[in-house]
């Protein structure tokens, strides 16, 4: 199978969905001539024109707010918010409007929109451009939250998100953009709400998303040398969460480690650990362990940032200690 980058996979998903459905349009800051802050929307203006690849002034509130109105009246907007750190500027439109309208109207209105945004550390962008706040919106019923880890998943899940009749927050890890992987040329939409087993194993379950999946895979390679067989589960969508796949894996291995780049307190690791404790306790041979960032905003200096982000060695340590 051909290999393309994570970035190219997203670009292809956008182009293909715009070709198949003329109600799909992109809206955001610097997505047109500039091709997006990271180059994700490059070439789309040329193919689809400025009406459907709609550059805006600095108006995050209106980017999401107008997308809600357009979605309610027959369109499928795909707004881009450059960094998750900017979600605060349009949180009312996401949390109070997009996520709640369907419910508040007793199901009468639908809001099919996909908010694309970038998240995570790794490029010394400091605290307002390296946010990991997916848990905010996992905590908001009514909006789906998707965090792909591979080019295949990125393309397939983005296509499914755009076709979904609900609001979706689609988070792209900045450090994954250049990562290459196999992506088929033909149709490849992946249903939302289904976890993927990134590596099968029998001794310990590691649950991770985004960049952390890659770090867990590296750790698993090394652990194999020590005779430890690691299973890696990537939920891919955090809301809705595929509990069954996680619990089935824990039933098999009896041990669970939950990894996230997010802060530990009330982050996604807290929820997943609680589910395992509540619904899979009888299978556990050891207490659930969490590998997460400390409860500080992401620092700037490369040394400090690296220290804050969970890496292979921390995942290794956690696995070794849970196997004792």
């Amino acid at each position, binding site marked *: 199978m051909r290999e393309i980058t994570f970035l190219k996979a997203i670009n292809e998903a956008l182009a293909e969905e715009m070709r198949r459905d003329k*109600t799909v349009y992109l809206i955001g800051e610097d997505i047109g001539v500039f091709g997006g802050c990271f180059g994700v929307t490059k070439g789309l203006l040329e193919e689809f024109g400025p009406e459907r690849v709609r550059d805006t002034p600095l*108006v995050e509130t*209106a980017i999401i*707010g107008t997308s809600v109105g357009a979605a309610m009246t027959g369109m499928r*907007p795909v707004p881009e918010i450059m960094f998750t750190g900017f979600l605060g500027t349009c949180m009312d439109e996401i949390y109070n409007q997009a996520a709640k309208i369907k419910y508040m*109207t007793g199901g009468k209105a639908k809001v099919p929109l996909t908010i694309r945004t970038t998240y995570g550390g790794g490029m010394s962008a400091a605290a307002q451009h390296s946010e990991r706040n997916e848990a905010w919106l996992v905590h908001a019923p009514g909006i789906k939250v998707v965090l792909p880890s591979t080019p295949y998943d990125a393309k397939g899940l983005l296509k499914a998100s755009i076709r979904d009749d609900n609001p979706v927050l689609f988070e792209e890890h900045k450090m994954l953009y250049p990562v290459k992987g196999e992506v088929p040329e033909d149709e490849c939409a992946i249903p939302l709400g289904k976890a993927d087993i990134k590596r099968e194993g029998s001794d310990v379950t590691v649950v991770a998303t985004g960049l952390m999946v890659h770090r867990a895979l590296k750790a698993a390679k090394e652990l194999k040398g020590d005779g430890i067989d690691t299973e890696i589960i990537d939920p891919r969508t955090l809301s809705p969460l595929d509990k069954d796949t996680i619990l089935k894996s824990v039933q098999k291995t009896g041990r669970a480690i939950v990894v996230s780049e997010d802060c530990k307190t009330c982050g996604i690791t807290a929820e997943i650990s609680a589910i395992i404790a509540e619904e899979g306790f009888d299978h556990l041979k050891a207490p659930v362990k969490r590998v997460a960032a400390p409860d500080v905003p992401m620092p700037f200096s490369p040394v400090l940032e690296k220290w804050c982000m969970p890496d292979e060695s921390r995942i290794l340590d956690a696995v070794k200690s849970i196997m004792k």
Partner: protein
Amino acid sequence: MEELGKEKLVGMYKTMVRSRRFEEKVCDLFAQGKCPGFIHSSIGQEAVAVGTCSALRKDDYITATHRGHHELIAKGGHMDKMMAELYGKKTGYNKGKGGSMHLTDVDLGILGMNGIVPAGLPISTGAGLSIKLRETDQVSVSFFGDGGSNRGPFHESLNLASIWKLPVIYVCENNMYAISMPQAFGISSKMSSYGSQNIQDVSARASAYGMPGVTVDGNDVMAVYETVSEAVKRARSGEGPTLVECKTYRWKGHFEGDPMVYRAREELEEWKKKDPITRFRKQLRGFLSEADFERIDKDAKEEVERAVKFAEESPWPEGPEALEDLYTEGGAE
């Protein structure tokens, strides 16, 4: 006015009366404990909603405010489903999940009342963008208040609508108070010092966005109708948005039970003399007899009573229904 024809004019009058009787009844029911939550009464502001919506087609859109029962009625909203929703019943517009502040009827172009001020502004602007992208000749109306014009979404929405020439009419229902904050204290003005009579118009803000801004007497339904009609014509012909400020006054408190310590009783009495319904009634004397007026009033009261009966007799939702309507199954083919 005559060129509109009797049917249209009488229809407008009826809608104002229906809205007034509905709201009076709702206030009563709230006092009796029948309607839970908050009630933001629109009594006194009927001319803005009716004048505006009478200039629209059924397929045009509106976003309504938290004080928007009159806006719904003016856009054709069904009183029985409204009342049932205010009761929290299963048969209400929102199956009891929204209540007074979230009444919505997408089929009638009513994209919802909203509990966040002024969240309807970007939503109606988005409906305007959708109209442009779908290449129809619909228009979108955004109702909001003087208070809402101070928040950021107002700025972002009007700026975008102007640069993209969106078919949106921003209708500011200026009732002079944002809860307790008088607009004289809340809206900057180069002319005024605090509390003086030199209050800058909200419509003056339109000049910052390169769109026409007009202030009209919001208690004069014909003035609202004519001004909004002009704005609708502009929007339909692709000339872009307009800001229409309608000066009016709410007779009741911000919510039912508001002690209204922030305004003088005399001020309210002065505004009651400018009752938009009494005023329009005088203008219609050539068309309708006293008996006609009485019948219209009686019909409105009966319609409200039927709505109450419908709400009273409707079933409550079952507890587990709280889990429904969160997500839509499926999606685009």
